[in-house]
């Protein structure tokens, strides 16, 4: 209704006025804001999907390396590192340290070690720690 009134408003000479340049610029700015918002939302959704994918790969690699380290543990006291370029884009750091723990009788349990595995893919990091009995 407003547009119709605006379009049919007569000027001094009896002619209809068009939109001014200012109005057109404002309309274009509003339109561009909407389009920019759409593009930002799309980009955010894609980033979230990529992040979920990286997190899934991180977790899958972490579980695989935990399984591997139970059969082939890293040397005690040092860190075994797998470079991302040689390991499907996931960097892995594995370390094994002695873990002093006493039983109910106060005696130290021999051979107990803590295995720490840390995986990094992009900006996603995952870490797990388990105790291994390696006499």
């Amino acid at each position, binding site marked *: 209704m407003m547009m119709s009134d605006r*379009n*049919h408003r*007569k000027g001094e000479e*009896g*002619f*209809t006025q068009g939109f001014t340049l200012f109005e057109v610029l404002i309309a274009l700015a509003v*339109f561009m804001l909407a*389009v920019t918002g*759409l*593009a930002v939302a*799309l980009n955010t*959704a*894609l980033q979230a*999907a990529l992040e*979920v*994918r990286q997190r*899934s*790969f991180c*977790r*899958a690699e972490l*579980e*695989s*390396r*935990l*399984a*591997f380290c*139970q*059969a*082939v543990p890293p040397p005690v006291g040092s860190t075994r590192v797998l470079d991302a370029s040689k390991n*499907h*884009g996931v960097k892995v750091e594995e370390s094994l340290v002695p873990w002093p723990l006493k039983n109910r009788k106060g005696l130290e349990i021999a051979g107990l070690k803590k295995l720490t595995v840390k995986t990094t893919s992009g900006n996603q990091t995952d870490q797990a720690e388990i105790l291994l009995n390696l006499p």
Partner: protein
Amino acid sequence: MILPETKRSCHRFRRSLGSAWAFTLLEVILSMAIMALLAASVYAITSSSITAARMAMDQQLVLRRLDAFLRVTRNAFLNLPGQGSVSLQLSKGKGRDAEPRLILGKVQGMFGMPSLGGASLMLAAKARADGTRTICMVRIPARLSDRELEAAMNAPGVPLLPKARKPRWSFLAGANGDGTPAWKEEWPPGSPRPLLVRLQLELDEIPDPVEAIFYIPPISAPQVEPPANDSPSPSPSPSQPPGS
């Protein structure tokens, strides 16, 4: 040359009609061009967003399928019973590539099956018409004739992971002399339980190859506490001196 009289009459005619100034052809073309540009930009953004969203959804679906498959397979290997066995067969079908078949023998309570009645479970990479493979779970009943066994192994089974390419199983029994793991591509029936099982494959929607390692706990004798040499005696009460 327009005569002044004619111009005035035109003006009068327009005023008599009470109509507004119309847009010129140039204005209409310009506005249509601007509208076309805006519509094209909106279409491009919307189209790319729909395509990207569809790709993201497909990838999410594949990742969820892969995650679920790896979880149930990992649990199956972790809960492999003491008498269970692991072996690999490569069957050569008619005009097809070899079909890797991982056979879990004498198992129970795996993949949601509480009792198999002495049967075996097989994870077979069945070929599909589109060139991909579907990793299926097939139940192989016990005590079958050769013909029945062949028919059971060629059964479609329960699909677990579709659209896989180049699936490859390998097994770890020990380490090389320099300490590096020695993976073996063959694991015939009758072999001891491997320490680790590795599955390598490619999935259509995921650019990187997938590698999963499964741990099989070794079988060891049950640890029992050594029996005490002397018979247990009741501990003296704190209020009572030991000599009394």
